[in-house]
């Protein structure tokens, strides 16, 4: 039985795990490798590391960090944040990243998905999509949710799949940070429209939100950050709860 995955997301700046709201009030919450190992021991199924360091500094620090994570972690991890060229991707993969998440670059130059999937295989390519629901339509945003693109969400996700994405990581900007639950309706439609796995992101605040997203949609995984970092929802108790609700999880 394939388990539904629980994925903590760690934001990285200058090699440290940080937490902030909309890039403001950023605080240091720990060492990315130590936090990753702790999550792994607690039963996280996978980790996502998102580098929010300024691009020019990232070129130096990120490959070293990825190498350190790959050396120490015994579960899969995805790295994202500013991958804009094939060469960036290559360096991260050579240092042991299991998957890459591409966001803005995928929208502005979609052929990067095709190239990455062709060279390394679809399983390396996670296309991350940030979108906002407004005036009856879901619009894709880039640059960390700051720039609207005019692109409609579901057609974009289908294109990403056709170009070779292996998974979609969808963050609803309307739900992110609210702790009121995932964007269940949008996720339901998305997971039904594509045949690759969809990872739900944005809105987790309580255990029941994870149950809802797995019961009401075909999302394969649920990602969250603050509820895990601040210990609001310990992963072992979340897994136990989901198993008790009859959901397939790895315990």
């Amino acid at each position, binding site marked *: 039985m394939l388990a539904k995955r629980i994925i903590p997301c760690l934001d990285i700046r200058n090699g440290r795990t940080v937490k902030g709201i909309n890039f403001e009030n950023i605080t240091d919450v720990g060492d990315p490798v130590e936090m990753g190992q702790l999550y792994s021991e607690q039963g996280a*199924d996978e980790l996502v590391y998102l580098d929010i360091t300024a691009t020019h500094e990232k070129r130096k620090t990120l490959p070293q960090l990825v190498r350190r994570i790959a050396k120490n972690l*015994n579960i*899969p991890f995805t790295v994202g944040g500013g991958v804009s060229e094939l060469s960036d991707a290559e360096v991260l993969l050579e240092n042991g990243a299991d998957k890459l998440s591409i966001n803005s670059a995928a929208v502005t130059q979609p052929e990067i998905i095709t190239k990455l999937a062709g060279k390394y*295989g679809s399983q390396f390519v996670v296309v991350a999509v940030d979108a906002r629901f407004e005036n009856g339509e879901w619009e894709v945003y880039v640059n960390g949710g700051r720039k609207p693109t005019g692109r409609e969400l579901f057609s974009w996700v289908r294109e990403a799949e056709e170009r070779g994405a292996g998974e979609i990581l969808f963050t609803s900007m309307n739900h992110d940070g609210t702790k009121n639950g995932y964007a269940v309706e949008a996720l339901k439609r998305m997971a039904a429209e594509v045949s690759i796995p969809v990872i739900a992101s944005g809105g987790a605040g309580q255990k029941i939100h994870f149950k809802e997203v797995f019961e009401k949609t075909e999302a*394969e995984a649920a990602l969250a950050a603050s509820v895990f970092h601040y210990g609001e929802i310990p992963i072992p108790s979340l897994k136990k709860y989901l198993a008790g609700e009859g959901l397939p999880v*790895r315990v």
Partner: protein
Amino acid sequence: MKTAIVKYNAGNIQSVAFALERLCREGVITDDPKQIENADKVIFPGVGEASSAMRFLEEKGLDRVIKNLRQPVLGICLGLQLMCEFSEENHTQCLNLFPAKVKRFDTNLKIPHVGWNQVYNLRSPLFEGVEEGSFVYFVHSYFAELNQYTIAGTEYGNRFSAAIQFNNFTATQFHPERSGKNGERILKNFLDL
């Protein structure tokens, strides 16, 4: 006591080397036939596409080297598929070490099969200390059929070989290097064969 990790045009090879480091074992990533032939153990890992991987192995003469190895060999993921007879992925003739065909998942489920799934009917020293129904990490779109040398099975739409063993050749479709404590135990069991 060196383990050679076969270097070819497939991904995730570095993570296997790191997994050996975590077990305090020495691993050398190499495409040198001599080094591979002289190693105590050989790991044939990889994530990628079957036909281009086979072409690369043939160009380097590594196909014959691998087939003729007498020491314990562990194929992982694409490694397992290449050790089978034939892969539907771009109609590729493979190394034919296991009498199994590799097929694409034909289901209404999500493809690739990504994530943690359970292994059953464990019957090999490779799984010593690993419980029936343990979760291990998979990421693949093609699978090897069940056959007489299957030593573990998994179900995703249909049942398929999670691991195969014949003579000195063992292979897993899942990634022991990314399968937490269970994976570490399986890798250690192989290295202690």
